[in-house]
């Protein structure tokens, strides 16, 4: 079998290796991604995001059990941070997912952000495509622990689950822009803790306020209380995800198409940006001032970033 056939047939070793090549930005990985692309489009992608320690990994672990009971195969991509100093990382999300290690229906991969901002690694979308082509029915993407503004997951996943816990800040936090706006489903995890009902009420207010501007037929975000380590609330979370999926795929709207177009647009723009930047940086080294020399000129006020950019663009795109 050739590489593409091996991946499409679900060969674990080959899948694991191509994911690594993608992460390392090996040029040959792009040839493989191109060949895999026709095989994509069957997986449903669910994103889990929220602050560090709210229980994202434990929820992913539990919802994976649920999907396995429904006889769906599962791919999991779990992102943890890269050290800005050493470039190294400790990826510990698997600790919560050990029960799946011997299940051939679950493939788990830990990723490091490698300096990428936004809650995912730069490679995440391509990795989703590989797992999709490899026949996983559901792909669960767990972001790095996020703050207020890491909303990239909303453009990668079909359904975004925002996980919070009781007592995470007051109601003012909830009306801020950013992360609170991207949840299709809100989970209040560790719901056995004091203040769970209050957090649910605050979320309801938030949803109520934003729904006033909503059209009939738009999605009403769901709130689910869970206690992930005990498995409580997982059935309700599963139902909420299914409901959102059915809402997107409902025959009489263009929602599904809209979601696909939004993802495709973001991914295409990302690919153009990366490739253009790489190409330009390579060419800079061949022509005129090196990047280091340009930095010197900017610092010494001999030139400025705006003039430099214009010069490069004039030279490269004439």
């Amino acid at each position, binding site marked *: 079998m050739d590489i593409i056939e091996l991946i499409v047939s679900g060969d674990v070793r080959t899948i*694991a*290796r*191509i994911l690594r090549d993608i992460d*390392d930005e090996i040029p040959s*990985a792009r040839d493989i991604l191109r060949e895999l692309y026709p095989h994509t489009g069957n997986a449903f992608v669910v994103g889990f995001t929220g602050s560090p320690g709210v229980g994202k990994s434990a929820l992913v672990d539990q919802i994976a059990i649920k999907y396995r009971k429904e006889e769906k195969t599962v791919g999991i991509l779990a992102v943890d941070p890269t050290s800005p100093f*050493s470039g*190294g990382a*400790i990826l*510990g999300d698997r600790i919560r997912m050990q029960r799946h290690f011997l299940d051939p229906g679950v493939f788990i991969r830990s990723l490091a952000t490698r300096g990428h901002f936004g809650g995912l690694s730069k490679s995440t979308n391509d990795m989703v495509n590989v797992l999709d082509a490899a026949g996983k029915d559901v792909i669960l993407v767990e972001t790095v622990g996020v703050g207020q503004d890491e909303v990239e997951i909303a453009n990668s996943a079909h359904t975004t689950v925002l996980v919070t816990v009781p007592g995470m800040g007051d109601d003012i936090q909830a009306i801020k822009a950013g992360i609170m706006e991207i949840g299709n489903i809100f989970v209040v995890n560790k719901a056995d803790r004091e203040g769970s009902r209050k957090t649910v009420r605050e979320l309801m207010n938030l949803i109520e306020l934003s729904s006033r501007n909503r059209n009939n037929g738009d999605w009403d975000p769901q709130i689910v209380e869970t206690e992930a380590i005990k498995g409580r609330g997982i059935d309700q979370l599963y139902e909420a995800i299914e409901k959102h999926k059915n809402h997107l795929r409902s025959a009489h709207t263009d929602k599904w198409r809209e979601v696909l177009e939004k993802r495709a647009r973001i991914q295409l723009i990302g690919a153009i940006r990366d490739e253009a930047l790489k190409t330009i940086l390579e060419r800079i080294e061949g022509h005129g001032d090196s990047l280091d020399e340009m930095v010197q000129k900017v610092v010494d006020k001999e030139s400025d970033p705006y003039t430099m950019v214009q010069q490069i663009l004039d030279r490269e795109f004439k």
Partner: protein
Amino acid sequence: MENARKLRILVAKPGLDGHDRGARVVARAFRDAGFEVIYTGCHQTPEQIVSAAIQEDVDLIGLSILSGAHTYSFPRIMELLRENDAEDIAVIGGGIFPLEDIPRLKEIGIKEIFEPGAKLQDITEWVSNSIRPRRAVVLNR
């Protein structure tokens, strides 16, 4: 391009042994040396360790063990790697080993054993010098 690859290392504790301070300290040292460490914690079976190593596409498995069960778990892990066509993944051990066991472990393919007193710098330098990331997968058409 290939020399820019980042080393990936699985750090795991096989068997019934909950003392993971050493494993955590070494994991941290690997992080500080610029490696990506997948940490799976305690109580791992050889099957779980090999499955995780393959899915994570690591270059190296670092096993920490203090219980004395290395005479079972280490050979079993090597066997499973062979069965899964994954012998290219190197394995090292750290912890407490009777001296006479060390040559036997090396005989079955364990690349290095680090005993109590091993310096973190020696461990990370050994990894940097001995472990090379594997080559890229290419379309074979």
